[in-house]
Structures are given as C-alpha cells and as structure tokens.
C-alpha cells in the first residue's frame, strides 16, 4: 500500500530544504503541537455542531411542510429522478472515503497518496456539482420547477407544490454551497500539499476539512431518501 511514495517537494540540487510540515511550531499560548491539535480539533467539532444545527432548520422545513402538504410532497418527490440522486450519493460517499484516506496518508507521511486522495476528493465534489447542475438543476430550470414566484411548471397535481420546490431548492442549494466551499478547500490543500505543508506533525487542516466534508456527506445521506425516495 505504501509503495507509491513520492519524493519530498522543494528539493533543490543536492540541498534539500526541510518540508514545511517538519519545521512547524505551535502558537504561543499552547503547550505543544499536540495541545494545539486537540484544541483545533475540538473547535472543528463545535463548528460541525453549528453546521448540523444550521441544516436542522431545513429538516424542520421539510418535516413541517410535508406534514402540512403531504400530497404536494408526494407528487413533487415523484418529479425527481432517483437515479441521479443515487449516482450522486455514491459519488459523495466515495469522496468521503478518499477524504478519510487523505487524512491517513498525511498521518503516515505518504505524500504521493495524499496528493492523489486530495485531488480525487476535489474531483468527486466537482462531479457531484456537475451532475447536480447539468442533470437536475438545469432541466428543472427549463421546466419552470423553481421556488416561489418563479415557479411556472404547469403540470402540478397539488396546489401547494410550490412548497416542495421551495424546500428542494433551499435544501439542495444550501448543501451545494457547502460542497462548493469544500471543493475550494480541497483544491487549496492540493496546492499546499505540493509545497509540503502536510505530514505526520501537521495535518490538522487535512483532518478538519475531512471532518467538514463528512458532515456535508451525512447531510446528503439524509437528503437523498428525504427528497428522492420517500413518496
């Protein structure tokens, strides 16, 4: 597994500068890097708590509107193609896997695998968005299946279907925004990996971003059955 190992970056002719991750120090108010790492990780977890509770509002939106307008949701849900949802779920799950693997690679100092996994995660996120936009958002846009006053879809079955589309765009939109931010972070880390930023002594950003990415994944794990499967 560890056969694919790349050289340290930043090597000049015969005079290798030490990679950044080996010269890292900690902020002055922590005792050591371990201390800093633990504090940072707890901070990330608290941030994830806020993320979950941010999405809780959308879950509440879903629960309340589904309770009030079940027929609208039943029909609205049937207008989504679960196959694209399934593919996107698989894409996101695999990206979660590569994100976890990237953490492992950073911990073990396997620079080549690290870069590969960071890139794969980034690309999977992009693939998710591409599928979302090209095969879901765009046709719905054309069909007029838009939220609120932009809704022009003529073949509604329940007069309250606008609530379904309001929820659909709000929930997937907020989720897609999070995916977009994650892609940006992974691209940024991919570049920084080439500069030798990450290694066994310094991988908080890899781990923190991975945690964030997993939460985005978990949100989608719930959104997928809620939007596509529950009729």
């Amino acid at each position, binding site marked *: 597994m560890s056969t694919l190992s790349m050289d340290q970056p930043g090597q000049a002719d015969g005079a290798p500068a030490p990679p950044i991750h080996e010269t890292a120090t900690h902020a002055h108010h922590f005792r050591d890097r371990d201390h800093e790492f633990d504090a940072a990780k707890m901070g990330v977890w608290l941030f994830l708590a806020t993320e979950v509770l941010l999405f809780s509002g959308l879950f509440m939106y879903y629960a309340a509107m589904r309770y009030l307008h079940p027929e609208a949701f039943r029909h609205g849900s049937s207008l989504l193609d679960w196959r694209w949802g399934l593919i996107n779920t698989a894409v996101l799950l695999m990206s979660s896997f590569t994100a976890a693997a990237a953490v492992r690679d950073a911990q073990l100092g396997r620079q080549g695998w690290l870069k590969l996994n960071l890139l794969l995660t980034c690309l999977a996120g992009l693939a998710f968005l591409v599928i979302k936009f090209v095969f879901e958002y765009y046709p719905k846009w054309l069909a007029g299946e838009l939220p609120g006053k932009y809704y*022009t879809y003529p073949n509604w079955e329940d007069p309250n279907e606008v609530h379904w589309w309001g929820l659909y765009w709000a929930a997937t939109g907020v989720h897609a925004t999070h995916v977009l931010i994650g892609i940006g972070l992974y691209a940024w880390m991919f570049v920084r990996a080439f500069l030798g930023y990450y290694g066994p002594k310094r991988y908080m950003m890899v781990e923190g971003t991975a945690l964030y990415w997993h939460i985005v994944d978990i949100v989608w794990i719930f959104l997928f059955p809620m939007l596509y499967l529950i009729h």
Partner: protein
Amino acid sequence: MAHHAHPPHGHAGHGIESPGAAEAHSHAHTVVPMRVLVLVLMALLGFTFLTVLAASIEQWVSATFDVVIPQWVNVAVALSIAVVKSLLVAAFFMALRYDNPTNALVAFFTVITLAFFLGFTMIDLGNRDAVYAKKAQYIADGGTGYHAAGTTQAQRAREIASQESIDLIARDQPLPKHLAKFCVLEIERFHAQAKELPEYLRTFQARREHLGKNYHDDGHGAHGGHGALARPDHATPNAAVIRSGLTLPELGGKGHSDEHHAPADHHNPADHHTPAPGGDTPAQPAD
C-alpha cells in the same frame, strides 16, 4: 515512523500536568486502518442500494397488490437506513470511535438539540387541533381559501408579487387549455375528497398514472421541449422576465407554440390582471 522519540515536554520540570493537557494526552492520534475504511465504504454503498431497493419494493407492492402502505413505513425505513449510514461515517470516517470522547460528546449534544428542535415543534404542528373536536361544530369547512381550487400557491405567489409591484415579476399568463381542464379536474378532486375518501384516492391514482409519463418526458427531457405538453410560458417574453438575471436569454425562445400566444395576449392589460383575490374562482383561460 511509529517511534515516540521525545519525552513529554513543557511541564516535566515541576511534574504538573494541567487538566487540559491530561485531556489532550488521554488518547493517541489513531490512524484508521485502510481495511476499515474500505469496509465502511462498501457498507455505505450497500446501504444506499438497500434504501433505494426498499423504496422500489414498497412502490411495487403498493401498485401490484393495490394496497396503500402507510407513509410512516416509508419514512421509517428510509430514515433508519440513513441513521445507520451516518453513524458509520461518524464512527469510522470521522474517527469518533477512536477519538477524544469530548468530541463524541459534542456530537451527542448536537443531535439532542436537533431532536429538541424537531420534536417539540412537531408536538405543536401535530396537535394544533387537539381540542378541535370541541371547536369544530362552530367552524366552517374549507377555511379561508386554504385549498382554493384552481389556483396553485405558485400562481398565488406571482399574483402577490405582482400586487406588490416588484419590478421583475411578469404578470400572470393566461392558462393553456390543458391546464384549464386540469383545474376543473382539481375542483372535482376536492369535491370527491369532501364526499368520500376511497373514491378520491382511486381517482387520484388513476390520473397520476395517466399523467405520469408526460411528467417525466416533460420534466427531464425538456431541453427542446416540443411535446404537446411543452410549456408555452417559456416562449413568451414575459416569462423570460420572470427569470431575468438568472436564465440565459436563448432559453426563452424554446418550445414556442403559436396557438397560445397571440402577441396581443401579453400587451392587453385586461389579460394581465390576476383573478379576483379572495374569490374562490379558478383561473380561467383567456383564449
């Protein structure tokens, strides 16, 4: 790599470790084995297929044997699988299983808070009419246009928006014929619903099957959109205004069908005003 070379640093001199440091050092930074990661990924993909399969089976059973499966079954199955999946992600991908317990505690309290929010709010929504039986004798059916037949809430949204003079909103389009017919169906449906439920359900199912193909042809194959059910409202300049700033201009020209849209239609103010608000009359086609 697996060699811990340095002695504990910092406060070794006086032999005091702060509680914070004790917390921090109570665990090692665990590397999750690749085997575990792969197994978890497999399990996640498997559960994903399982949840799709369960939904399909429910639909198949419902359609084949003509039984109505209560919705809570559907919801319970799908969400249970989702819970298992997210537990897997949290435990292994996010390494909560190996991590400092404080972080698991954070996650736990987050979920509790979420449950409070959803649970207590649903207590209100689900029981708002708990003493309704006592009040019901005084209250008329139908509310104040709660299910105003013939007007979708979306049309209502645009109607409201136009009343509020929001510049970007186009006035209502005259309804195409098939939609007007659909409105009549809607009214019938509500009448049926008021009379007896099973009949209404059968009507509803039948119509949905009948329309089902069209929906999918329409909703997802609508890049060209030239079918009989193509939405003419894309074809009009007014409809394009609705999405101004969001849609490419060329999208407005697609699926144009002349018979619905004589140019006079969208310049004649008489056709633009919305149905009388407060009235329960369905929107009528102008042509």
